[in-house]
């Protein structure tokens, strides 16, 4: 028997089609959508509000937004993916993980495309990159693993309990504002170290953002502590996600 690589690529294609169904511009939308979003945020926070005196603020914001958008979209889109693909699940006994994995893979493609746009801009603004740039693929891979673990949990939970997606949606908004996307934890809350530590280490997305910002924007975000943290976070997320998914996937054809 063959393996399921071709199935995975088919699912990725389906997911692409699902997101951008019927649009003539097709692939271009993968970039236009997040770029417009990035542009709007950057404009608002760099020029209109401009709360902090941070150099090259657009790059600063973009680095955080790239990470956050990837994470948020992965979790949101994977939530109802199993329900969407119920017709396939009721057909054959293929590995069900392929479905949320395909959703996250599509988001990974989008993130990589964004990075390809952002990196030259960052280079133009900064003039040079440090050796940290070599860490970019590592951080992206770990972020993918982390998001995949979350996507596995959210997707299988939502198949059984249909209020998971609204709960996740509601949680993502405050999570967005608590994440260090528009601000820098190192310069903030100097008088409240406990809150700062909670924001920095209690939010598993924060170290990913700080690392991405360290690589693209600079400012010494790349620290051994953060690297260790994201390795552990990615491993834990993937381990827990796989375990939960394996435990619950059996009844999928019944509950869908």
């Amino acid at each position, binding site marked *: 028997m063959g393996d399921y690589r071709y199935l995975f690529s088919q699912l990725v294609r389906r997911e692409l089609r699902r997101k951008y169904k019927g649009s003539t511009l097709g692939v271009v939308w993968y970039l236009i959508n997040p770029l417009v979003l990035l542009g709007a945020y950057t404009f608002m926070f760099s020029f209109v509000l401009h709360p902090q005196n941070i150099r090259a603020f657009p790059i600063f914001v973009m680095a955080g937004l790239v990470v956050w958008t990837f994470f948020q979209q992965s979790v949101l889109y994977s939530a109802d993916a199993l329900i969407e693909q119920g017709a396939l699940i009721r057909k054959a006994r*293929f590995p069900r993980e392929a479905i949320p994995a395909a959703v996250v893979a599509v988001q990974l493609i989008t993130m990589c495309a964004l990075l390809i746009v952002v990196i030259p801009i960052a280079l133009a603004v900064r003039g040079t990159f440090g050796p940290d740039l070599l860490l970019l693929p590592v951080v992206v891979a770990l972020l993918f693993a982390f998001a995949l673990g979350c996507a596995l949990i959210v997707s299988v939970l939502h198949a059984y309990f249909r209020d998971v997606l609204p709960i996740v949606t509601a949680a993502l908004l405050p999570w967005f504002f608590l994440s260090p996307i528009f601000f820098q934890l190192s310069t903030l809350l100097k008088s409240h170290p406990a809150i700062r530590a909670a924001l920095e280490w209690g939010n598993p997305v924060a170290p990913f953002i700080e690392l991405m910002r360290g690589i693209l924007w600079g400012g010494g975000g790349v620290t051994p502590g953060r690297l260790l943290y994201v390795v552990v976070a990615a491993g834990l997320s993937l381990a827990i996600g796989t375990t939960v998914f394996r435990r619950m996937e059996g009844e999928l054809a019944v509950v869908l």
Partner: protein
Amino acid sequence: MSTGSLRPGQIVLRDATRSFSVRADNARTLKGVFIGQRVAGPPPIPALRGVNLTIEPGETVGIVGRNGAGKTSTLKVLAGIVPLQSGEARCGGRVVSLLELASGFARDFSGRENILLQGALYGFSKAEMEARMQTIIDFSELGEFIDVPVKTYSSGMFVRLGFSIAAHLEADVLLIDEVLAVGDEAFQRKCLRRISEQIAAGATLVLVSHDPGSIERVCGRVVVLDAGRVEFDGPTAEGLLHYHRLMGTEYGSGTSLRPAGDGGPLEVAELELRDGAGHTASVFPTGAALTAAIVLRSSRTLTDPRLVLELRGEGGALVHRTATPVELDPAGTALLAFEIGEVPLLGGDYDLSVGAGEGGDPPALQRTIRFSVPHGDGPQGIVDLRGEWRSLAAEPARR
């Protein structure tokens, strides 16, 4: 896919048990779980209760039974789509299933893309599917519709495509649930031919159907399920007889065709079928004796009471109709029998209906009862013509 020590095409069900909970809202909510909300619903319905079944490679097995007997559950368990609660279900080799009409299809993909997708679901690579593509398209006879999104397909087209794909994936075990019935007859014949080719090549077939005809044509073995248990497991002819007997218990002693109290001047109060020994029966083999016992009741004096008896075959085709004047006793009742010495009917289900009334117009039918004639190895059709073959060569030039 874990096949253990099974050979390709071998199937083992050991003490297979599975029940399903039935709820109006089949999805629960986290909120409900956290606040400990327990909705009192009906208890889970057992679909399989300790089913044991061993099928060898190359066998063709038909599963029959009433609605809810566990037929489809058996297929879903064998396909590995629904897990068992206890017991064991194993299939050797590649298991390909045709269970639901639209399952396995991406509605916004074209027929061609769906061929690739379904192949992928069974672990085929792109090259392997491209190699089969033209054969599948030709078999499906979908023509230019193959490049149209399948959401525009009719159910017949879904069946064509679904079967064409399933029949070309080199299955070791083929699981088919009723769906074949949707295609037109020419396509059904083609499917049956294709299935026999695959069986000849060593594949195992498990077919669920309500149509004894198609089971008879395809299957060498029949499993009768009733209420989640194996009621019978053996050769097809015997199995179908068993099935008819099982269904016969549901036919009862005649169903009224009109609401109670709405009887005309003359009411068919009772209708019963009896065999040669005078026992109530619902299965009559070709050549056996059949008696329809009828009780008529009238509330007033009638001048010209008449009775009509009608026999219809599957699909409602009229087989026989006869009418007779009746004589009522002073109490206004009459007991009659319609006797058939040797049932000249061939395998199938038949409805015998009786009506009674007065004078002129043919009376409306009031009661109906169903019986079945088991399919035999001999002639096929509705009527046994009792024709005989003889050779004409022995008597030349008779003028």
